[in-house]
């Protein structure tokens, strides 16, 4: 009786484990491959080695790419947090002409496949490039034009904003009006109320969106791939693409090491922050337009 009970309960788990195993096996393969000379299926051949790791960790390009990827992820996080939280407040709290239209348009924009806009954005970035200094003369990010990290950052932020604004608006919608009124009567300006009374209350939402943006920026591929021509000076995902798609024979050991190297921070980050990420769905989605 008991044993039967147990086996019936475990059936769904067994089923789930089976259908997700290809993914696990894939990651396991990548992991093993970084420490071996060659593999036949899942079986390491030719013995274990740390050469793959040594090769990429000594490669100055990699550290350059890590830096770029980090700047992109961090820039996306900061940009999204600042703009979304500032834009969502009036959308949640103020009555102005065009508010409803703006909200529905940004929702449509979010649903829009970004690939369809790539060519148009290419032209926009080219125009931005023509602007002196701002276009391609800034330190660290290179500028905001075509073939610069800043340009990629700009486009990434733009694509993620609809989601960010809607999430933040959901959090603002959940804060009682009375608290804001109390602050206004106590002597706050509208800006100060936003800054000192409302933002602290949506801190979990900000944390969640920030983490989300960071991970998105860290692993983004299509935008950097399209708008940064030289994959060697771009980000890790494009470098990975270069390693696996060139006309030279592919060194799977090195490629796997780079892939794992890109994956690890995300994995750790996720482990420590999933509590906040869940809040996006439990807290932020409440509240309508």
């Amino acid at each position, binding site marked *: 009786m008991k044993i039967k009970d147990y086996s019936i309960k475990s059936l769904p788990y067994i089923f789930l484990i089976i259908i997700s195993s290809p993914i696990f096996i894939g990651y396991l393969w990548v992991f093993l491959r970084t420490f071996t000379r060659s593999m036949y299926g899942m079986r390491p051949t030719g013995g274990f080695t740390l050469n793959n790791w040594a090769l990429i960790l000594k490669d100055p390009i990699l550290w350059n790419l890590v830096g770029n990827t980090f700047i992109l992820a961090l820039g996306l996080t900061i940009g999204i947090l600042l703009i979304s939280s500032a834009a969502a407040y009036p959308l949640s709290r103020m009555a102005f002409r065009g508010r409803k239209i703006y909200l529905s348009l940004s929702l449509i924009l979010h649903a829009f496949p970004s690939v369809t806009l790539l060519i148009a954005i290419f032209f926009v970035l080219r125009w931005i490039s023509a602007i002196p200094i701002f276009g391609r003369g800034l330190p660290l990010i290179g500028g905001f034009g075509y073939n610069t990290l800043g340009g990629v950052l700009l486009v990434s932020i733009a694509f993620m904003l609809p989601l960010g604004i809607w999430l933040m608006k959901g959090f603002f919608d959940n804060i*009682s009006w*009375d*608290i804001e*009124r*109390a*602050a*206004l*009567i*106590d*002597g*706050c*300006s509208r800006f*100060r109320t936003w800054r000192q*009374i409302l933002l*602290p*209350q949506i*801190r979990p939402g900000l944390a969640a969106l920030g983490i989300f943006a960071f991970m998105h920026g860290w692993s983004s591929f299509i935008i950097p791939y399209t708008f940064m021509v030289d994959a060697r000076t771009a980000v890790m995902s494009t470098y990975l693409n270069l390693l696996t798609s060139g006309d030279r024979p592919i060194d799977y050991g090195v490629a796997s090491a780079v892939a794992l190297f890109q994956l690890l921070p995300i994995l750790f980050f996720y482990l420590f922050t999933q509590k906040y990420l869940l809040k996006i769905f439990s807290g932020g989605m409440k509240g309508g337009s």
Partner: protein
Amino acid sequence: MKMELVNLNKSFQDVSAVKNLNLKVNDGELVAFLGPSGCGKTTTLLTIAGIYKPTSGDIFFDGERVNSLQPKERDIGMVFQSYALYPHMNAYQNIVFSLVLKKRPKEEMQREAKRVSDMLGIGHLLDRKASQLSGGQQQRVALARALIKQPKLLLFDEPLSNLDARLRMSMREEIRRLQTNLGITSVYVTHDQVEAMTMADRVAVMHNGDLLAYVTPEELHERPRTLFIGQFIGSPSMNILDAQLKSIDGSLHIKLTDGTTLPIPGERTPKSCKDGDMVKFGIRPEDVKLDSNGSVRGKVTFIESLGREHLIVSNIGEQRMQLLTEPGNKISLDSNINISVDMRKAQFFDAETGLTLLWE
């Protein structure tokens, strides 16, 4: 401070929440805005506070027009039904927040916080977060936060509605005591008529955005100007029966639908009425008694214990009459009873307009 509203209107899109409100509040007075939910009380209060801009009309503080002043420039304190404490601050930080914004020195903040928290008996709670306080304690902190500014006008929006009945009673007294001692002009919004009647110097009754009456609680109870007020004020509420005026042997009587007639005392003669007119006859449950010699005959349809008293609902003909009795009476459901009515307390309202036929 004196406060005056002149032809105040506030509409939201097509909803007219406050209609042409005219009202003066004297210095040190506590005025209650009383009315059912949705009648525009909160809207009026928030317009006074400067959170809403009036659609038209003016607001005067001590004779000065304040329409264009920001909330923070109006020198007011406000207490909300939801307490509205800042959740990320502790009680002390909540209370002194307005002083922090004014960049007052720390010693002054501590001194003032002690002053108001002593007044409200919350000195021991100052380092707790809002979520660690009970409803009653949160409301005290909110009150302290409003008082620390030494406002010229205090606004209350149903501050006691979320508290349990016993706490509500003691807070009622306490707020009134503080308000009188400090002499702060106050506007107190409530839908609870007991609160309005026990606390206020004057009561403004609102209904659908209109001001129906603005008088003292006693006046409101004894001389209701409309049928709505008559029924809204007092608990259990006033009995209203259809009746016809009838002259018998030269003196005016009312005739109820079951044919019973009752004499109307001279001082309660309905104005501008004639023999045969239909009126609404109002009488409070406490002015109706069980009396074996009573001339009104009814049948008991419902008995409810109110603790100290019993509420009996009886039918007189087709109409309902509620009365209060001592619990000792052995009255059973469906029994026939005789009732005497204290006609010196009778109210009469126009059957069509619902306006009083007795008072100016």
